[in-house]
């Protein structure tokens, strides 16, 4: 198991070196949405709070960083720090009342949508943030080729995966799982459910904000409809839900399946076939819900173990 994992990691890490430009781009997107999915999963999977407003943190991170770094000419580290700080403040400001009033399930999802939409409308209105024209970063990107971006996002992905894995096994992770399964029991065992959920929201938001900063640096153009839009939130959530919400691997596999499907169909069918990627995305979600409600990773695992059982059964 360990050896196969090492081989897989080696292949993935060497992949950008011999891929063409376009495939490097796809790989960056796969890793980006895998990374965002893992971050989303801290709140959505571990804590079981289905957030559909991840775009709020994504957009806030991207916008704050770009404006501080490029318009106000603050140093890189400081801009990133301030962007993450702002997103944390946002997350706390949203999280405290939301969990205080006991919003969970659908109501939590709807509240997150509402907050993200409010942010989108405000940014779309505010001339300081570029309003409907969007915000363009200097056309000269920091790195000359896609290779560097590829490795940056792989590094982010791996560190997020390790962090998630570490969190999952610790008391804090177990507490979150218990809150997800049964909040009253969690409270009875002395876990502060509200504080755990708030912590999960903050971690998730900070991670997503860093993803937003990467996105800004890579695409060099920000627009309220694409950064704060509902589509981004759904895309982030879809990657981890399709892959499986309880494991580290889920979002990565989910993104590795969904992103190439969406991008590939966009490239294959061309401009005439606009909307095809949405259809594929939607169909993938529907299939996942009807056949693999606990995610594709779990589904595959179950199919394999079922096959093995049959195989051995016939042998015996």
């Amino acid at each position, binding site marked *: 198991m360990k050896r196969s994992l090492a081989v897989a990691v080696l292949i993935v890490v060497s992949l950008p070196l011999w891929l063409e430009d376009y495939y490097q781009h796809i790989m960056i997107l796969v890793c980006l949405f895998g990374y965002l999915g893992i971050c989303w999963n801290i709140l959505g999977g571990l804590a079981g709070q289905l957030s559909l407003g991840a775009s709020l943190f994504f957009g806030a991170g991207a916008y704050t960083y770009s404006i501080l770094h490029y318009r106000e000419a603050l140093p890189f580290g400081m801009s990133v720090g301030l962007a993450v700080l702002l997103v944390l403040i946002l997350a706390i400001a949203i999280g405290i009342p939301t969990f205080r*009033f006991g919003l969970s399930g659908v*109501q939590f999802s709807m509240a997150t949508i509402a907050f993200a939409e409010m942010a989108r409308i405000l940014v779309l209105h505010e001339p300081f943030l570029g309003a409907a024209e969007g915000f363009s970063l200097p056309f000269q990107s920091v790195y000359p080729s896609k290779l560097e971006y590829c490795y940056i996002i792989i590094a982010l992905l791996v560190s997020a995966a390790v962090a998630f894995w570490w969190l999952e096994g610790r008391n804090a992770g177990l507490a979150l799982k218990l809150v997800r399964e049964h909040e009253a029991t969690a409270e009875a065992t002395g876990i502060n459910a509200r504080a755990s959920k708030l912590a999960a929201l903050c971690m998730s938001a900070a991670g997503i904000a860093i993803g937003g900063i990467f996105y800004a640096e890579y695409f060099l153009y920000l627009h309220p409809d694409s950064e704060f839009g509902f589509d981004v939130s759904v895309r982030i959530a879809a990657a981890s*839900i399709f892959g499986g919400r309880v494991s580290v691997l889920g979002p990565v596999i989910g993104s590795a399946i969904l992103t190439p499907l969406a991008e590939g169909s966009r490239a294959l069918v061309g401009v005439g076939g606009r909307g095809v990627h949405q259809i594929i995305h*939607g*169909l993938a979600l*529907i299939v996942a*819900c009807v056949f693999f409600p606990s995610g594709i990773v779990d589904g595959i695992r179950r199919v394999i173990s079922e096959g093995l059982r049959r195989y051995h059964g016939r042998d015996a």
Partner: protein
Amino acid sequence: MLAQALLSGLIMGGIYALVSIGLTLIFGVLKIVNFAHGDFVMLGMFLAYSCFRQWGLHPFNSALIAFPVFFVVGFLIERGLIEKTHRREQDIQIILTLGIAAVIQGLCTFLFTPAFRTVTVTGLAEVVSIGSLVISKAKLFGFLAAVLFTCLFVAILKFTSLGRAVRASADNPVGALLVGIDLPFVRSTAFALGIATVGMAGALVMPFLNVSPEVGALFTLRAFVIVVLGGMGSIQGTLAASLCIGLLESMGAALLSDSLKQLPIFFVFVVALYLRGSGDIDPEIKSYQPSALDLRR
């Protein structure tokens, strides 16, 4: 100026009532979280648009076609997809309906391109003036039709045996089964009815609203705002909330600015969620459901 905003808000409120009364049934009563709701409005608009382009059919006539078409579509979707998620957590339903929404949106983008489309009906282009107030005929007739169909819908829910069955199975699924109500059939029919009214609403608004594949999400969000604000499942509440949201939107546009007109809606939405916030929607009914379905199978 303010009176004009009030009037147009009221008119839009009437339209929203027809859109969200279907969601009241689906989300408030049946507890199906349908995030594809607004996309069916959009689909209805495109139906009316293509009927108009192809055969010159008046959008109000298309509304009558839309009803049976969307009824069948809704029935099939409930039977084929949503029913499979009844026993599961609501998260799965949210994702499933988001998937359905994406498919509808993608399909419309594929068929009609993302451009905005309009329909100009000759008889409805002029305006009616009441004193100093002006209202376009298209909006006025759309409003009247919406009010009529909303009343019809409410009457069905209140006075027919189907309506009684729907309300009974929402109140207490086990009890409904015991008195001989075919629960899955009633659920599918009610869902189909909700979708049918929404498709019809789409056709009715076509003469005065632009349609593009992206307008669906806006309708979905508005409809959820209205249903939550109206108390999830209360018909009177939904009607009142529709008018409130219509007014809020037009006042927002008049007092703030056109680009900020939706801000107050979401603000009110969040406040409404906080004030109502009590975790899952009716946990008691949720825990009833599996056993009720087990009885049948």
